[in-house]
């Protein structure tokens, strides 16, 4: 299943947030969206996931999601959004409970996703007992449990320290290599974008417009930390973003 945005614009009251966005999210690829803060990345993602309606333009779903997909468009949030009163297992189970699956099937799914995110031993733990990185892995397990057609990730690593971020990035790459998934990955961290993205969309400052789309052809598994080619791409992206970011920053001060 692909996603397509056609001429999407949006405003909150008098504030124009997005202008004329055309974008294609092809199946099996990770599309990274980068841009200065406040340029409408989260808004764009919420629209893709049906949590918000654009003021104009269309958001289209091309093709049917796979038959065993329980929630085609699935979010992973920056602040994890785990229920603090449920255990790790309970948090994953939450999203399966409304689907009338037989008990055994449900347990099998939970066991599988906890194993894939290396959380098997922590099934009974409460979120308050987990580190930030583990919390985000629970959120990833929960997203995998519904077998999404597209994962929508809003700065999933931004709340974590840089070592944990590296580890989780490796986990995401391993997950994708074993079983490619489709994802839209919002970040303001260019290093993450060049590690994970097949396509990197650079947005301008508010109102967010597409400045450039960079396609990276190096397979994810071969992108090493400190790779020269990736460094060059990152420099190029930074060149695009720097002025926007500076201008956006000055704008926020003037408000």
């Amino acid at each position, binding site marked *: 299943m692909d996603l397509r945005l056609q001429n999407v614009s949006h405003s909150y009251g008098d504030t124009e947030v997005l202008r004329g966005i055309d974008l294609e999210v092809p199946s099996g690829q990770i599309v990274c969206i980068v841009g200065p803060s406040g340029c409408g990345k989260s808004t764009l993602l919420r629209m893709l*996931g049906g*949590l918000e309606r654009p003021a104009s333009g269309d958001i289209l779903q091309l093709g049917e999601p796979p038959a065993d997909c*329980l*929630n085609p*468009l*699935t*979010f992973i*949030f920056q*602040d994890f*959004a785990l*229920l*603090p*009163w*449920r255990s790790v297992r309970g948090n994953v189970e*939450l*999203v399966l*409970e*409304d689907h009338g699956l037989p008990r055994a099937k449900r347990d099998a799914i939970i066991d599988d996703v906890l194993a894939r995110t290396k959380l098997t031993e922590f099934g009974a733990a*409460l*979120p*308050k007992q987990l580190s930030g990185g583990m919390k985000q892995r629970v959120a990833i397990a*929960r997203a995998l449990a*519904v077998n999404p057609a597209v994962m929508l990730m809003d700065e999933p690593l931004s709340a974590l320290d840089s070592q944990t971020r590296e580890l989780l990035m490796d986990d995401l790459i391993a997950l994708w290599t074993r079983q490619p998934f489709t994802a839209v990955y919002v970040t303001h961290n260019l290093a993450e974008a060049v590690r994970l993205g097949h396509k990197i969309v650079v947005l301008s400052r508010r109102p967010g417009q597409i400045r450039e789309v960079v396609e990276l052809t190096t397979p994810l598994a071969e992108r090493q930390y400190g790779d020269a080619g990736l460094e060059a791409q990152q420099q190029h992206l930074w060149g695009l973003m720097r002025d926007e970011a500076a201008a956006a920053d000055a704008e926020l001060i003037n408000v």
Partner: protein
Amino acid sequence: MSDPAQPVSFRGGGFVAQRRRGVGLAVFVVLLLLAEWGTRTGFISQLTLPRPSDVLATFGELYQSGLLFKHLIPSLTRLIVGAAIGASLGIALGVFIGLFSLVRAGLVPLIAAIFPIPKIALLPLFVIWFGIDEASKYALIAFGTFTPTVVATYAAVDNVDRTLIRMGQSFGLSWRSIVGKIVLPGAMPGILSGLRISLTIAIILLVAAEMLGAEYGIGAYILQAGSLYDLERLFAGVVILSVLGVLVSGVIGIIERRVLRWRV
């Protein structure tokens, strides 16, 4: 440098709620011993304050004559029935106010208008509506418990983390699941601390209702004692009320520790 070494002075203490067992009990005991000592030595006159040991003796008589339970059981029944009705209606309405802006717009001013009414003033009205018997007492206690519960509940629902609700919606959870599995558990801390207050109000109203018209009940017992200036019996009644208050607060504390174990 040859400056003398000094330990860095500690200044990070305090401002943390810690559980300290037995201190509350110790305060009670000290106050009682003071009263006992004062009344025995004549430092406090018998007319001002009854001697704690006399109150205890009165309490023993009350127990042995079987009158204790004759007063206590109707009171507890009124309290439990009235508070249960009031609290459950209050939680239900509070959740509706928290969830639907139309209900909120319509009812919050109404709640604000009835909140400050001293409910006991409405007892005659309840007697006309529900009769002189138990029903009017249930209604009074229920009504008194209801308003603070509503206010606490909708404030608690307002405070539920919106990102969790967003999360529920983004996974396509049904409305019932979102309310039952996200909103209600998230509002539970606020609802329970609201219940602490509303149940105390329920005890106050219980006594008030019983003073205005009941043959048996702690309120009636205190009223009889008071009109005879029988301070020992009056205090025996008051002690029962205090114990009831401590029990209610203890039960809610236990529920909080069990239900809210997830809190940091």
